[in-house]
């Protein structure tokens, strides 16, 4: 059995505490964790999410010992950046540049929901039918 300990896996939409073994440049996790925390399944035909599968050409880069999968290999295959801090027991799984580019190239303004100062949530789609002047700024 692969000895595991808790790792905080951070994505843009939240954080989950997962069991993982971080060593030798790999982050080994159970396939079930890959499903719940990342949304992808390791299947014989490749790495799948819903109907979409990405073929795995180099199984050794994805599969670890005792039926585990390597999150580093998975992120690499999906073109997603993964930054691991072994000391902090935390990792950040970012979004693929190609996915971000494709979304922007579609010219459909990406949907978002964010709070105002009073904590009230606002979504871009609430303003469909209006012209929107969207400003990103900062106090710094």
């Amino acid at each position: 059995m692969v000895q595991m300990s808790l790792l905080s896996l951070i994505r843009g939409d939240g954080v989950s505490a997962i069991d993982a073994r971080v060593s030798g440049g790999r982050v080994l996790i159970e396939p079930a964790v890959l499903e719940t925390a990342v949304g992808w399944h390791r299947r014989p035909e490749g790495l799948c999410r819903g109907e979409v599968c990405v073929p795995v050409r180099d199984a050794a880069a994805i599969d670890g010992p005792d039926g585990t999968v390597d999150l580093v290999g998975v992120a690499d295959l999906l073109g997603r950046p993964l930054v691991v801090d072994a000391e902090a027991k935390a990792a950040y799984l970012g979004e693929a540049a190609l996915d971000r580019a494709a979304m922007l190239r579609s010219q459909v303004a990406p949907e978002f929901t964010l709070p105002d100062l009073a904590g009230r949530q606002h979504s871009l789609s609430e303003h469909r039918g209006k012209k929107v002047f969207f400003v990103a700024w900062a106090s710094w």
Partner: protein
Amino acid sequence: MFEELRELGFVVITVAFERTADDAREWIDAASPSHPSLIDTTWAIADLYHVENVPTVFWIDEEGLIVRPQDVAFGSNMFQDFTGVDAEVHKTALRRWVRGETPALDRDAVDRHLRVPTEADQLARAEFGLGRWLWEQGRAELARAHFQRAEELAPNLWTCWRGSMRMQDEDPMGELFFEKMTAYRGDGGVMARVIAE
């Protein structure tokens, strides 16, 4: 600023990248805006819309399509000497679009001006994201290395390197900022990328 355009079916939405809502509170309260003034404490919009510096503006039409991608606009000419951008040019163009006097950019022009992230940008954002989370967890010392790595990977992402200065106990308007800004521009880096059409 655009109150007179509201009845024409126009809305301003602002999003501030801040450590906490309190960082922006003073500014928003002072402006007491009637439009949605949102707070983004995880820099999600910077990632989603590939915002490299602030301020960055987008025009989004009635169907939810981007009709003017990343552009630079200021509310006034207070910083014109510093930025080289005349605020009135954008304001005039925006008013004309809202009033239906001139169309926004067409699809080809949007595509031409649209900026999309590189792999280095997205890796930098992941480094920044981990640093930001560690800072939030009270582990600023561990965060620092990630902020520095983000800056090395993508010096074009002011939203990361300048946006992390407060989390590194540095002044985003201090000497270090001006040093970095001068070095970046000296290397041919762009601070305010204005769409000139």
